[in-house]
């Protein structure tokens, strides 16, 4: 493929939304409305097809964030306390509250748009847990993306979306973000998007760490393999301050296929035990006192539940089982009438299978392949590999402004969800320290950011001339892997083995190996130390140099090259922030063996920033307000 043979297309807009998942759809939905009233243009760019892009591509079996404010079921403060405790005190109350006060509105919209939500006999939503409601969510993303597209359509010529365009870099004008560049993964086109405001909603990062399965199962990550760190890279490269880059998420899921456990724990009231049938949460409850006050609060933070399980495995008490058989039998035994109890069994069976079929079909296939009937046989659960997402129980992302009426002091700087870079906004997995937003909260945060970004566009009507030299230089840089391949591939008899370049696949494996072994991956029981992290960082510097020699034979491989550059930056910010925080605060996510306890002086945010001018990293400790 000839790198010189690329057209350049320049697209001008006012608000540029980068991404196509839940947060991006929320942003497009909300921004379109305010854009129409204020004569602004909105353009969305997705690397895939919106109908099935992002983490909800497969569907979901529950909406994990719904407060039921209108019925007085919960308060915003209840939710904020829950989130803060789950993250061991490290959370932005203003951001969590902002999402929580609006999220019910999003869920009510989903229902009106056609999402089937389970109802009880009185017509109320069926709760899975306190904050979770059950849905028939196979087409959740189809429905939400249709609403976003319809909203864009209301703008007529001023609303547009591009699919299959992969975004690589921010376009900067001095200290302001004024666009993005990328390329089509279908045709030889380099895109330059010019905008007044840019909203980064490109999801979290998977495959930074080596997954537990490395054959075909490499792709069976819990969070999707196509979420590859574009959000973090984009904000970092723009010079934005980042937060909680050390707060990875390690979910516990059904082993290997990573099926969800929420419904089993919450809806079916199942227990998890070690191989001897002991409930390790009870057996090891005294360990939680070492992590007080968070460890001794209810519910126990996700990372500490992981930690007790990891201790159990270290002692040789595995496998760990979800006692699905026991849970189902118990629920059926509660019904004395035989006919009624048979009906209940049928209903539970269907619910159990739907839980997987709606969102992790592989787990259903895993059960079928192993002849597992959940009502008869327990299933193994295990900790997955680490992921970077702030929509679940991780927290990594950009440091963003909170809302004027909720954010204390320095946590507000003008526009909701604007990063420390003027004109650059972030939401969903791209915005940090506001965990537990899940699908509904990500959509909602996208709405909040979308409205604020339109306000920014109205307040900042000035247009900037981006020079042709600037875009030409970016084009050359973005397409370089094609050129490198072109120049050198004929030298050897195997295009994948060539001393002049590295292909993205091996580049990814090298990154995963470094992260797994030095930065506390699954194979080392999530343990690391200052010495290991320092060594890992040294290896990453070699990778950064070799990144200049990535090679791509086609457009698909060009995308893979950039995905892995994005992952590498996510990795570096992660290692640097773990080094900076000299304590262990989330022992079930990672454990610093040289600082094995939580420290009072680290009851703070660990932030970082890469300076685009000097190319140096700055570490910043910020108070929790």
């Amino acid at each position, binding site marked *: 493929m000839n790198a010189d043979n690329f057209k350049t297309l320049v697209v001008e807009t006012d608000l540029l939304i980068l991404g196509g998942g839940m947060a991006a759809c929320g942003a497009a939905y909300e921004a379109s409305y305010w854009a129409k009233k204020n004569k602004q243009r909105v353009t969305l760019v997705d690397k895939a097809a919106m109908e099935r892009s992002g983490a909800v591509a497969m569907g979901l079996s529950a909406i994990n964030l719904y407060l039921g404010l209108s019925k007085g079921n919960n308060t915003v403060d209840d939710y904020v306390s829950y989130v803060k405790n789950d993250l061991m005190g490290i959370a932005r109350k203003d951001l969590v509250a902002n999402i929580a006060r609006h999220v019910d509105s999003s869920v009510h919209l989903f229902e009106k748009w056609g999402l089937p939500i389970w109802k009880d006999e009185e017509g109320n939503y069926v709760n899975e847990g306190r904050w979770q409601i059950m849905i028939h969510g196979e087409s959740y993303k189809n429905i939400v993306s249709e609403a976003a597209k319809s909203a864009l359509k209301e703008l007529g010529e001023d609303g547009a979306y591009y699919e299959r365009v992969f975004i690589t870099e921010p376009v900067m004008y001095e200290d302001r973000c004024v666009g993005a560049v990328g390329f089509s993964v279908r045709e030889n086109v380099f895109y330059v998007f010019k905008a007044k405001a840019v909203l980064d909603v490109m999801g979290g990062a998977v495959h930074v760490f080596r997954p537990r399965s490395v054959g075909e199962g490499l792709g069976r990550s819990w969070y999707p393999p196509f979420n590859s760190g574009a959000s973090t890279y984009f904000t970092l490269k723009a010079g934005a301050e980042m937060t909680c880059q050390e707060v990875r998420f390690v979910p516990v899921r059904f082993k290997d296929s990573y099926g969800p456990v929420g419904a089993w724990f919450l809806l079916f009231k199942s227990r998890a035990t070690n191989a001897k049938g002991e409930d390790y949460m009870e057996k090891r409850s005294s360990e939680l006192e070492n992590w007080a006050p968070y460890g001794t609060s209810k519910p126990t933070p996700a990372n500490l539940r992981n930690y007790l399980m990891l201790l159990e495995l270290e002692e040789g008490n595995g496998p760990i089982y979800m006692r699905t058989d026991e849970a189902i039998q118990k629920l059926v035994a509660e019904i004395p009438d035989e006919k009624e109890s048979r009906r209940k069994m049928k209903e539970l069976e269907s619910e159990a*299978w739907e839980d997987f079929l709606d969102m992790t079909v592989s787990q259903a296939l895993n059960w079928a392949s192993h002849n597992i009937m959940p009502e008869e046989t327990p299933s193994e659960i295990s900790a997955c590999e680490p992921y970077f997402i702030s929509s679940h129980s991780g927290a990594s992302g950009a440091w963003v402004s909170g809302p004027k009426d909720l954010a204390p002091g320095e946590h507000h700087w003008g526009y909701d969800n604007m990063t420390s870079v003027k004109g650059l906004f972030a939401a969903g997995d791209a915005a940090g320290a506001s965990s537990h937003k899940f699908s509904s909260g990500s959509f909602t945060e996208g709405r909040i950011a979308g409205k604020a970004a339109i306000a920014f566009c109205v307040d900042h009507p000035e247009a900037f001339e981006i020079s042709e030299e600037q875009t030409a230089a970016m084009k050359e840089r973005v397409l370089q892997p094609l050129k490198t391949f072109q120049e050198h591939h004929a030298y050897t008899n195997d295009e994948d083995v060539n001393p002049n370049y590295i292909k993205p696949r091996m580049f990814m494996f090298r990154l995963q190996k470094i992260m797994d072994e030095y930065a506390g991956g699954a194979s080392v029981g999530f343990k690391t130390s200052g010495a290991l992290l320092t060594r890992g960082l040294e290896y990453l510097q070699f990778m950064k140099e070799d990144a200049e020699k990535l090679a791509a034979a086609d457009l698909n491989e060009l995308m893979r090259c950039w995905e892995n550059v994005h992952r590498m930056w996510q990795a570096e910010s992660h290692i640097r922030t773990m080094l900076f925080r000299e304590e262990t605060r989330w022992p079930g996510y990672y454990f610093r063996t040289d600082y094995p306890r939580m420290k009072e002086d680290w009851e703070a945010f660990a932030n970082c920033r890469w300076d685009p001018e000097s190319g140096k990293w700055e570490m910043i400790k910020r108070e929790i307000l």
Partner: protein
Amino acid sequence: MPSFVINEKCDGCKAQDRTACQYICPNDLMVLDRETNKAFNRAVDMCWECYSCVKICPTQAIEIRGYADFMPLGGVVQPLRSSDSIMWAVRFRNKVVKRFKFPIRTKPEGSIDPDAGFTTGTEDLKSPVLRTEPDSL
């Protein structure tokens, strides 16, 4: 393997303006072999087994063979997705078959009204009130 294409059933979406699986795959894995006019998964170890290609294929030519790393042979999970529901056939390794049917949407595709009948309480761009609020809360 994980997703695979049954040669006999794939017609390369010749009646459509684009290949359905190629259009939908969130990881850009499905491609059309121009010589054989059959689609294929170009990187099976990057496949999330999300079933988007299986569900959208107009000739039901795509199935999933579970990751060989950890799944014994013989299990099959196959959906049939209609406009308002999805039917699943789950065949176990021991040949037991279970069938499930679930609703997927309550309104026809293409009929969504973004405001869904709610009204927005303010025109103020600087207020924290979002589109359709407070009505939709």
